[in-house]
C-alpha cells in the first residue's frame, strides 16, 4: 500500500461503529470535541443515519488534525473502534496495516485478521457498574488510553459536559474504567514482550 504523505500524517481518521442506541455518535462527538475545543486541534464529525439508526449498523467518522480539514469523509481509518459484529464486517476491509483496531470483545469476534487488535469487554464492564448504556463511555476511555490521540484531561472534561446532568460522576467512573483497562492492557503487552507474563519468574 502506498504510504501516506507527510502533510496528512498529522491527521488521524477515526471510525467508531456499532448499533444504533449504543451511543456511538456521542462517543464520536466527545472525541471530536475533546480534540477541537480542549486540545486545540481541528476536527470534524460525520454521522451515519438512515435505516441504520434503528438498531442496525451505525457509525461516526471523526477526523482530528493539526491543520484545516478539507474532507470529512473517511475511506481508510487510522483507528477503527468496533462495538458490533456487523459494524466490524462493514469496515474491516477498509483498514490499513497501520490501523489501530479496538473492539468490544464480547460483541465482536474478529476471526483471522492480519493486524493486531485491542479488546475490552466494555459492555460487560458497563453492566458491572449497573449502566449498560455507558459502554460507549468506557470505550471512549479505552480509546483515549490506547490511541493517545486526545489528552486525558480533555477527554474527561468533555465527557463530564456531554452527558446528562447528574450522571457526570458515574460517567467519569465509566470513562476511567476504560482508560485504566487500556493502560493495564498496554502494560501487560509491554511485560509480555519482555517475557514477563506471570508474577513469579
Amino acid at each position: 500500500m502506498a504510504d501516506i504523505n507527510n502533510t496528512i500524517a498529522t491527521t488521524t481518521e477515526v471510525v467508531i461503529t456499532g448499533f444504533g442506541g449504543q451511543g456511538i455518535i456521542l462517543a464520536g462527538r466527545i472525541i471530536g470535541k475533546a480534540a477541537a475545543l480542549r486540545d486545540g486541534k481541528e476536527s470534524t464529525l460525520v454521522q451515519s443515519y438512515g435505516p441504520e439508526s434503528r438498531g442496525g449498523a451505525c457509525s461516526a467518522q471523526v477526523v482530528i488534525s493539526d491543520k484545516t480539514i478539507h474532507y470529512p469523509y473517511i475511506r481508510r481509518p487510522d483507528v477503527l473502534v468496533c462495538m458490533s459484529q456487523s459494524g466490524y464486517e462493514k469496515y474491516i476491509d477498509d483498514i490499513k496495516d497501520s490501523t489501530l483496531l479496538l473492539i468490544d470483545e464480547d460483541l465482536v469476534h474478529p476471526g483471522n485478521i492480519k493486524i493486531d487488535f485491542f479488546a475490552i469487554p466494555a459492555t460487560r464492564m458497563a453492566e458491572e457498574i449497573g449502566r449498560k448504556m455507558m459502554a460507549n463511555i468506557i470505550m471512549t476511555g479505552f480509546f483515549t488510553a490506547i490511541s493517545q490521540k486526545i489528552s486525558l484531561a480533555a477527554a474527561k472534561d468533555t465527557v463530564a459536559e456531554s452527558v446528562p446532568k447528574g450522571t457526570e460522576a458515574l460517567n467519569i467512573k465509566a470513562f476511567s474504567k476504560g482508560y485504566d483497562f487500556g493502560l493495564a492492557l498496554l502494560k501487560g503487552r509491554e511485560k509480555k514482550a519482555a517475557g514477563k507474563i506471570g508474577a513469579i519468574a
Partner: protein
Amino acid sequence: MNSFKIILFLCNWGPHAAFQELQDKRADIPAEIKMIRIPCSGRINKSLLFKPFEMGADGVLLIGCSPGSCRYGSGTDIATRSTEDTRQILELLGLKKERLQLNTFLPDEPDALLQFLKNFCEEIKAIGHSPVPSEKQEHKTEESASLAEIISSHDIYACQDCGKCTSACPLTLSGKPFSPRALAGSIIAGDIESPSVQEGIWSCLTCGLCYDRCPSAVNFPDFIQNMRIFFKNKDKNGHESHGGFFQSLMRTMTSPAVNTKRWEILPEDIRIDPDSKTLFFGGCAPYFDKYFNHNLGVSISNTNMDSLRLLNFFDIVPSVLSNERCCGHDLLWTGDLDNFKILAGLNIDAMKNLGIEQVITTCPECYRTLSHDYPEHGIDVPFKVTHMYDILETEISKGAVEFKETGKKITFQDSCRLSRFAGRADLPRKLLQRLKPDIFKEMPETGSAAICCGNTGWTGCDSHSKALQAKRLRQARATGSDLLITSCPKCQIHLKCAMQDPFLGNELSMDVMDLTSMIAKTIYWK
C-alpha cells in the same frame, strides 16, 4: 563496668566434670564468663538461649555432652537444632550468629574446654559489645489506668448478663471452663486475684467473636488488652507460649542500636526502589520461618516475597525499611505497652526520615497495628496504611489480567484482624472469586463469624485452644477441599501446628497456602 558479658549454659554431666577440674586447678577461666549449670543441653530451648541476649549478653555458650554420651539420649541433637535456629535469628536481628555457639566436651577434656572458652572470649571481644544494653534505660512506665477506669472506659457496666458472648466464644465451646461474661462479672466485683480471672485474662484469644455478638457492644478483646497491660504493670506474668521467645525477640528490637538484617537477602527477581515513598512493611515472617524451621517447615516469608512480586507485576516498585522492627502487635496484646510504644516510635521515626507516604502490608496484624493501634495509643502515623489486598483489588479490577486454573478445591480461613476487627471479610473474598478453583466452598462459620486459628499474640496456647483448632480443621476438611487458603501468617503457623497432633495422625492434615501466594502463582497478563 564496660566488661563483656558471656553466659555459659553448662550441662551437669560430662562437660561439667571438665569445668570442675579447671576450677579445682584454679585455671584462668575468663572472668567474663558466667556459668549456669543445667540438667541437659537439650533442655535449653530457644527462648532460654535467646533470653540472655534480650538482657544484653554479648555472647552465649551452650556446652553439652559429646554425641553419643548424652545421658538422656537426644539432648545433644535437640541442642544442635535449637542453637542452629537461634543463631539464624540472631543473624536476622543483626546481632551476628557468632555470638551463640554450641560445643560438646567429654569429662576428660578440661584443657580443650579451657582453650575453647578463651577463644570464644577473644572472638566476642573482636565482634564487640552487643547493641542491646544490659541495663535497660529506665523509661517512664506510664501509670496504667486503674481498674475502675478500665471498667468504665470499656463500659463493662453496660453488660446485660445475656451470655451471648459466652455462647459464641470458641474457647468456651471447646470445653474450657471459661466465660467472658463471668470474667467481666468477676472483674466488676473486684475479684481480680482469683485463679479463674488470672487464667481467663491470659487465655482469651482476643478473637473478637464475642464483641461481634454483644448487644451492648462491649469490646471484650480491647478490655482484655487493657487488663493485660494492667496486670503486666503489676509484674504479673502472662502465659506466653514458646517460653515467651517472641516477646523476648520483640523487646530486643526496642534497643535503638539494633540494626536488623531481615531484608538483607532478597530473591533476584524482586525489584526494590530505595527512593520510593511507598514502603512495603513485611512483619516478623523471617523470624517465624527460622524459629519453626525444624518443627513446622513453614515458609511465611514467601507471602512477603510473593507480595513484592505482585507489586512488581503491576509496576509498583516499593522501598523496604532496611532496619524494620516488629510492629509490636504481640507485645501490645500481651500487655507490654511500654515496649510496644518504643517499637512503634522507632518504626515510625525511621519511616518519617524516609518521607514515606504510603505503607503497604500483607500481614493483617501489621495492618491492624499500624493503622489502628499506633494512633489509638497516641503515636502519630504520618502516612497512609494500605492492605495488600486493596492494592490487588484495585489493580486487578483495571483488567487485562487473567488467572490460571488452580486445579484445587479451595476453602478459606478468615483472619480475625482483617475480617472481624477491620470489617473487611469481603476483601479476600473478592479476590478469591477471581481465582479459578475447581470449587470454592466456605466453612460453616465464615467471614465476621469465623472461628479463630487458635492463638493470638503468642499467649494462652493450651489443650483447649488445640481442641478448637482441631474443630476448625475438621470443618475445613468437611468442605471436601484439598487446599486451605489463609490470609494471616499466624493462622498458617498455628493451624499447621495443630495438624501435627500425633494422636490424630493425618486426620487434620491439609495443604495450606496464603492467598497472596495463590494469586502470584496464577495471575498473568492476558
